[in-house]
């Protein structure tokens, strides 16, 4: 889409706000509406927009396929790892209260933030991977 100057300029202007909004949704998921799943999708939508305007090759330069694969795995590991950490600290699986036994509600707060980050990472990476797989069909 080399000719579409308006699209190129507008999408470039929008991109940082899309990603920033994704991070807002991510880190307000504990008390407000939002959370890792929604944030991941919004974050990935930024990459999809970039890919639609500037082409798949440009996305793959930023989000290398292997890096995306590692992010998919790392998100799940972060989530499950949090659960294992709570087990090691004497609680049940994903009982975040075990992080701060004196103030379990604080532990619950931190725990939710961490696992939502894991969700966000995996969802965003999976969405980007799905997009680039379908867009790259027959080319890879």
């Amino acid at each position, binding site marked *: 889409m080399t000719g579409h100057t308006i699209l190129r300029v507008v999408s470039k202007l929008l991109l940082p706000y899309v990603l920033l909004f994704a991070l807002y949704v991510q880190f307000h998921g504990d008390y407000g509406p939002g959370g890792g799943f929604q944030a991941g999708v919004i974050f990935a939508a930024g990459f999809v927009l970039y890919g639609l305007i500037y082409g798949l090759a440009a996305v793959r330069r930023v989000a290398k396929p292997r890096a995306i694969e590692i992010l998919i795995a790392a998100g799940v590991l972060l989530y499950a790892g949090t659960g294992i950490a709570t*087990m090691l600290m004497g609680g049940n699986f994903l009982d975040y209260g075990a992080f701060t036994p004196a103030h379990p509600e604080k532990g619950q707060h931190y725990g939710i933030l961490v696992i939502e980050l894991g969700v966000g990472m995996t969802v965003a990476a999976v969405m980007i991977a799905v997009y680039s797989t379908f867009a790259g069909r027959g080319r890879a």
Partner: protein
Amino acid sequence: MESQLPPLQIVIPLVAAPICVLLRNRVVTLGFAIAVCWATFGVSVALLDRVLASGAIVYEMGGWAAPWGIEYRIDALNAFVLLFVSGIGAIVLTFAPRSMGDEIPASRQYLFCAVYLLCLTGLLGIAITGDLFNVFVFLEVSALSSYALIAMGGRRKALPAAFQYLVMGTIGATFILIGIGLMYMMTGTLNMEDMAARLPIDGGVRTTLVAVAFLTVGIALKMALFPLHGWLPNAYAYAPSVVTAFLAATATKVSVYILLRFMFSVFGIEFAFEDLALGRALLPLALLGIFVASIVAIFQTNIKRMLAYSSVAQIGYMVLGISFATATGLTAGIVHLFNHALIKGGLFMAMGCVMLRLRSVDIEDMAGLGRTMPWTMAAWVVGGLGLIGVPATAGFISKWYFIQAALEQGWIIVAVLVLMSSLLAVAYVWRVVETAYFREPSERAREASEAPLSMLIPTWALIGATVFFGLFTTRSAGVARQAAEALLGGLP
């Protein structure tokens, strides 16, 4: 750490899957995944021991008490299911390195390990959880990963087979979700035990009826009960040998477990089998499935496909046992879950050995194979005897309980039909034996050599187990009887 066994059962394979993606190296990943599978099996052995010694185990996820939180509840039935699913998972993956070397590109084998572990996680999760929505989530985890596993079969036909399974599996899962949704609407709870206490609700009968209908059809699709078995033969025939052995031995069995759990623990035997007479609906389907699928199996030339049709028939037996809704009938159904998992797993692994050497499982190519691959074909013979139900094999124990259950009810015709259906199994097992031992070797068979030990040992481990559990039944039929009695008494 001992009280943390229930989550470990799920968390170990779940965490190992992304680690496989990070490791990437083919050899390291395979070794790691095999070790993880055996560790998972170890956990399930410990769980079964604890359940048999001291009754049901309850675990609160995240420390949230039921019915608000998700609860893992393990009694004799699901401990038994966990045991054989994780055991088969470990043995089949030990068999995998050589077998899939030819069938799955080396660059994708680390992904195979990750997806295999996820599938195992899903199947174990379905069995372990005491929460209805959690059942659906794990159902999707196992189903999505099994579509991917089937599609990894190198041949083009694997893709439409996987897609057909995806469509049918998604319809089944959606029906199950609708059923769960309706029940949630009626009771406001998702915890199985809590729901069982609140059902049935007067005045809300119609919603409950619709929920039962959706659940029964959805689960029947998932377990490939005749006539909803359309997706199964192609999926099993064109998947890589390892995947077929794993899924045939575990996936449909776990669906049978869901049926048992929903009908007996959640709806209760009075409602499902006396008010609704579900048994009368399941019995003819089961018998039809046994006969139609066995007859179709006789005419297959692709032996993996033949075994797939035989699996549909065997699901018929399990449902037959359930439809009696008596302690003996349920024992028969549950012990056949286990015995058939061993037998079919072993037979499909023998076919994996054949596939490795012949690059085909067509009956014509297997002519005379008994001479060049004696151990593989001997495994086929012993496994086949188990499928028929010859004494001193695990299959005999199942058939014995089926016939006993039918006679207890005074249904002599059903007992005769079960015996007659064994003759059909003789027909399709014998076709392969005759071709392999009494015909001049085909060109491919003459060039074949015996399968490597790394594949023969796991195959014979399962085949040996079918003989072992045909002779010593305390750990199979004994546990199944305990599970059946617990089911009939409601949740333990």
